[in-house]
């Protein structure tokens, strides 16, 4: 299999460059990450982040042939060669395929990703009806891999001001949570020119989400909730 991989070592290289590799795929190499690890066995200077190897941790999000995805759950079978691998677009590169996600997580933390409820805590736990629990489906599964935010043009132009699709999906996850009591504060926090409304419904986020989630739908629901509350 032929691959062309983005290389940049800030201690050694002045500019990034693409390096070509050719590897023999082994009988058990099903996913792209298997192939990258095979390359690493030949060239241990190649840097990539990975952990769970099964699409749960979100560490190995990279740009694969122009489209963001998780290397560990991308089958090698359907990939056009040479497979072009780049770090997540618009994120600062630390080295090779590893990017700095500081700003991404700062935006995530800005939406207060935890249940806010000042009412006295019950003896055991805050209960939720099955219907209310079902509202969290399609939201809680986000693994914060940043595939969506990194592929979103609105995030490219205003990464410091626009929360981004991943953060907004999480915001809706807490807005709609029946146990949360800060719904209005959360909506007010997002109601400015940038934090939510930079979204131009381009929908790259929903297109590339490796977990099949729909941040654009969550964003739409937040907007409709704002409209309802303002009437």
């Amino acid at each position: 299999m032929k691959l062309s991989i983005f290389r940049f070592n800030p201690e050694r290289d002045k500019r990034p460059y693409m390096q070509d590799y050719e590897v023999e795929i082994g009988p058990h190499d099903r996913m792209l990450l298997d192939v990258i690890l095979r390359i690493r066995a030949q060239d241990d200077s190649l840097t990539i982040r990975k952990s769970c190897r099964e699409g749960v941790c979100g560490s190995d999000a990279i740009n694969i042939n122009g489209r963001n995805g998780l290397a560990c759950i991308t089958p090698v079978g359907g990939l056009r060669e040479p497979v072009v691998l780049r770090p997540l677009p618009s994120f600062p590169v630390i080295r090779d395929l590893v990017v700095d996600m500081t700003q991404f997580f700062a935006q995530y933390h800005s939406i207060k990703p935890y249940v806010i409820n000042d009412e006295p805590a019950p003896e055991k736990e805050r209960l939720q009806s099955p219907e209310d629990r079902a509202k969290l489906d399609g939201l809680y599964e986000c693994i914060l891999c940043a595939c969506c935010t990194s592929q979103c043009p609105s995030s490219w132009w205003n990464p410091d001001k626009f929360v981004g699709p991943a953060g907004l999906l999480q915001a809706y996850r807490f807005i709609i949570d029946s146990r949360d009591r800060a719904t209005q504060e959360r909506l007010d926090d997002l109601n400015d020119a940038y934090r939510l409304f930079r979204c131009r419904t381009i929908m790259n986020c929903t297109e590339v989400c490796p977990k099949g989630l729909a941040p654009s739908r969550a964003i739409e629901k937040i907007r409709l909730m704002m409209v309802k509350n303002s009437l």
Partner: protein
Amino acid sequence: MRKAVTGLRAWLVQRVSAIYMLFFIVFLLVHFLVDPPNSYLAWHDWALSRGVSIAASVFWVALFAHAWVGVRDVIMDYVHPIAARVFALALLGLGLVGAGAWVARILWLGRG
């Protein structure tokens, strides 16, 4: 900031204006298909009748509001230096006010 046309307000302005413009354009198309004017004078009288003038004025206001929000968003995305942004927004505002004055002159001041 909450009073300014930003966030939800701007988003609503764009949606509501788009819906109005869509209905107005459909109304024009249907009118010209069903009951086309047979002369320039007939068209002129119809266009300057009170109801159509008011509907057309609302259409232009909707268009200018829609354009203001839309182009302002593009400027906010691409023009980051404050001076350049203020200049671009001022240019846009002047252009829209000028176009609005022109529309008002045609629709309301040019009646003979």
